């Protein structure tokens, strides 16, 4: 769950993600990316939202993008992936990543339920929440703006 108003665009999440997953600091291969417009307020971290009807799975020519049965997450099969980049282009939420060195698709796997980016976010802009719960939380936050205390 992202609170874009809190994000200061420091990009620490990109660094810790790549260190955790790739064992080197390489933001180009991180699973999370911070979209940041210089000189404008606010920044937006983007990552895979594990959609219910994933477009990336639809366009994958080799059916490498599948939902893991045990976790319900959308994870591309590295063995099958041919590195066409179709999933990156089609993702409406800019959440699909690409490993430019091994030429394979990358997805956030939520670090087995303990996301590294959440742990290190200095402003608490990234939070880990159940999707059903976060929906009502977002409604509450939006309503609070209309009806301040």
């Amino acid at each position: 769950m992202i609170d874009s108003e809190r994000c200061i665009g420091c990009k620490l999440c990109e660094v810790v993600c790549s260190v955790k997953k790739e064992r080197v600091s390489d933001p180009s291969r991180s699973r999370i990316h911070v979209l940041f417009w210089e000189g404008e307020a606010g920044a937006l971290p983007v990552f895979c939202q594990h959609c219910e009807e994933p477009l990336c799975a639809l366009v994958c020519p080799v059916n490498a993008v599948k939902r893991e049965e045990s976790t319900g997450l959308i994870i591309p099969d590295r063995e099958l992936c041919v590195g066409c980049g179709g999933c990156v282009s089609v993702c409406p939420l800019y959440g699909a990543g690409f490993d430019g060195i091994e030429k394979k698709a990358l997805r956030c796997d939520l670090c087995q339920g303990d996301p590294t980016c959440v742990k290190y976010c200095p402003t608490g802009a990234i939070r880990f929440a159940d999707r059903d719960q976060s929906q009502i939380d977002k409604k509450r936050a939006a309503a609070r703006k209309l009806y301040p205390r």
Partner: protein
Amino acid sequence: MALPRKAAFVDLGSGRVEVREIPRPLRESFLGGRGIDMHLLYHLTETNLDTWDPGNILVLGAGVLAGTPAPLAAGAIHIGGRLPLTGLAGSLILGGFFGAELRFAGFDHLVIRGRAEGPVYLSVQDGKIETCDAAPFWDEDSLGAQGVIRDTLGEDNAQVLSVGTPGDGPTPLELRADAVHCREASELGLLMKSKNLKAVAVRGTMPIEIEDPDKALRCLGELMVHSPLPDAADQSGRDIIQKIYEDECLQALIDSLGIMKCSSDLLSPEMQQWELYGLLLEAVTGLRCRPSELMRTGERIFNQEQLFNIREGFTGAQRERLFKGHFFWGELWPKSW
């Protein structure tokens, strides 16, 4: 092995680029960023050079923790050079992501010497350095030039360090790392312009190796949990001069690590954080560094800057009073390149 990494020596006059590994003893003594920049400035600047001589160098240096799991991803860049009007050692830190991007492009330090024949800018991309024509936007301001360079390179993610354009008369010049990070730097700006250099653009997608990734993440986690703000009352009894000296040394250290300036509030020799930074440094780079040694490194870097000023004829009584510690560490970087 996380270290050594590379420094590039660029001669704008001949267009020659030489890339060298940064020797480990230099790392151990001066870390990176402001530390190594000042060492290079001291040893590569010939004495008694004319103010506008092309032999004067401009050094850009990323901190040794830049682009690694350090608080707020450490992206600051240090700019050093002999100030043309006063002859002093110029030292400027600009925030933003330039330092981190420079490391992702494969270099920790850029040493720029000579004068280009016409207006140019340097383009650094994944280990390659090119000199490109800057004539079309030489008169643009620093922000405008950044936009033009990004469009020319087709790289929206490129980080650009650019210099402003002075208007009529003695107007100040600025150096700019991005839309937010911009500092008044007339003399460093003039030095940069005297080389016919409008900007340096960097874009990198190369990984930075980490000596012990798990330990680095653990240390970072602890650093972010412990964030005790200093109690002002604790420091009120100190000798003010000693405090200034310590702050200067600490700042030199922070600049060499490449971490955020606001970390200075959280970093002091009395605090646990200090020890954690030593551990983080070891985890990221493999450099063994005890907390006491870190403070000595800060002293060494600050003293090297003061040595430069003294050699150039500046011997203020106050400066000398601040000055302590050893005077000579020898030459850790070969003079000819």
